[in-house]
């Protein structure tokens, strides 16, 4: 069999493609783009919540938030590791992010105005991420699927800590309950947009599904997320800001309104509330750390030429 036939056969039999296997150039490029975008989202995703670490209301909440944000850094690194198996270089990918040549999830361009936002991000944003990511654990590219398995194991903690935080606030003062409702009102629609544009406007989806990189369409996953979230909102005692939201007994799914796709388009193309700030922050961190990376490399080189230590 030729490489091409082996590839087609591997996909058809639902087996995994591994880094050194022959693969179509389009498959490789699609994966690099998707994995890089996913990695960038994890890295940029540290910023909205990171802003609350120093302002967390208790040591317990601070420790939890610190662990959660550290996990997101880890997720970014697992994914850059997977991208590198395809011949990408993580330094280059970071450069592309900073220069705006690669994207990250639009959700992280919204501000975190109160501590309730930390809870709502855990509940809805990590919840939407879980919906997206669980099927990716069966993605056809082995290193990506394995990274997703690690990530999904950790996401459950993220969602539960957020929901618990919100339950605590809902048991507090009327002002605290208002903060939760306000955060839900602001994050609900952007969370629905995390699944991407409607299927009809998502031209590359079909190819990704044929290659089994993706397993479900954007609209399927969005519906799944709505169905999961409605009873959780009821249990919490908050209202989801969608007058069209109601159970459809015939479909056995919730009907829901249409997100403002022009807003998604604006945020994706760089005009969201905080796009510039998020990228500027990432660029700053990269340049602030440059001397440390260079010093460590120089030290390792010196150890190596002296023929001692842990260098080679």
């Amino acid at each position, binding site marked *: 069999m030729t*490489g091409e036939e082996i590839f087609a056969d591997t996909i058809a039999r639902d087996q995994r493609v*591994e880094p*050194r*296997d*022959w693969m179509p150039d389009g498959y490789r490029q699609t994966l690099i783009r998707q994995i890089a975008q996913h990695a960038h989202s994890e890295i940029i995703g540290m910023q909205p919540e990171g802003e609350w670490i120093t302002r967390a209301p208790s040591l317990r909440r601070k420790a939890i938030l610190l*662990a959660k944000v*550290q*996990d997101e850094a*880890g997720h970014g*690194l*697992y994914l850059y*590791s*997977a991208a*590198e*198996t395809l*011949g*990408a*270089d*993580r*330094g*280059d990918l970071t*450069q592309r992010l900073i220069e705006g040549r690669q994207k990250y999830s639009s959700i992280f361009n919204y501000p975190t105005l109160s501590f309730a936002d930390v809870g709502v991000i855990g509940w809805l944003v990590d919840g939407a991420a879980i919906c997206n990511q669980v099927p990716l654990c069966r993605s056809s590219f082995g*290193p990506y699927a*394995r*990274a997703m398995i*690690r990530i999904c194991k*950790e996401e459950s903690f993220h969602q539960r800590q957020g929901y618990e935080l919100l339950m605590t606030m809902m048991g507090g003062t009327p002002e605290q309950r208002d903060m939760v409702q306000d955060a839900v009102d602001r994050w609900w629609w952007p969370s629905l947009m995390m699944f991407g544009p409607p299927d009809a406007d998502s031209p590359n989806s079909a190819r990704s599904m044929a290659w089994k990189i993706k397993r479900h369409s954007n609209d399927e996953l969005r519906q799944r997320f709505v169905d999961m979230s409605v009873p959780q909102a009821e249990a919490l005692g908050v209202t989801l800001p969608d007058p069209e939201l109601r159970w459809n007994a015939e479909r056995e799914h919730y009907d829901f309104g249409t997100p403002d796709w022009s807003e998604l388009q604006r945020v994706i193309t760089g005009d969201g509330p905080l796009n510039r700030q998020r990228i500027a922050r990432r660029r700053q961190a990269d340049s602030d750390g440059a001397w440390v*990376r*260079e010093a*460590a*490399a120089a*030290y*390792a080189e010196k*150890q*190596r030429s002296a023929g001692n*230590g*842990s*260098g*080679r």
Partner: protein
Amino acid sequence: MSDGIRHEWPLFEVFVRAKRGLNHVHVGSLRAADHGMALQHARDLYTRRNEGVSIWVVRSDDVVASDPDDKAAYFEPSADKVYRHPTYYAIPESVPHI
């Protein structure tokens, strides 16, 4: 990929022993300036929840791997040697413990 990239730190492959009695298993890779830093980063990255009791790190460019194109030449010769498997041998049911 594209040229002119500063490879600031080399790539290391990470192997973790989940618990005593098990082999070290490959879990992913990371970048570090040297082996000591690679171990430190591997601990922070791959064992935040008691996933391991021991870590190996290996420079990725030190790994020598078989070529997928040689898969047939490498692995197919064993496919027709069924006599290497115990089930190849018919033993009467009446013979115990064999």
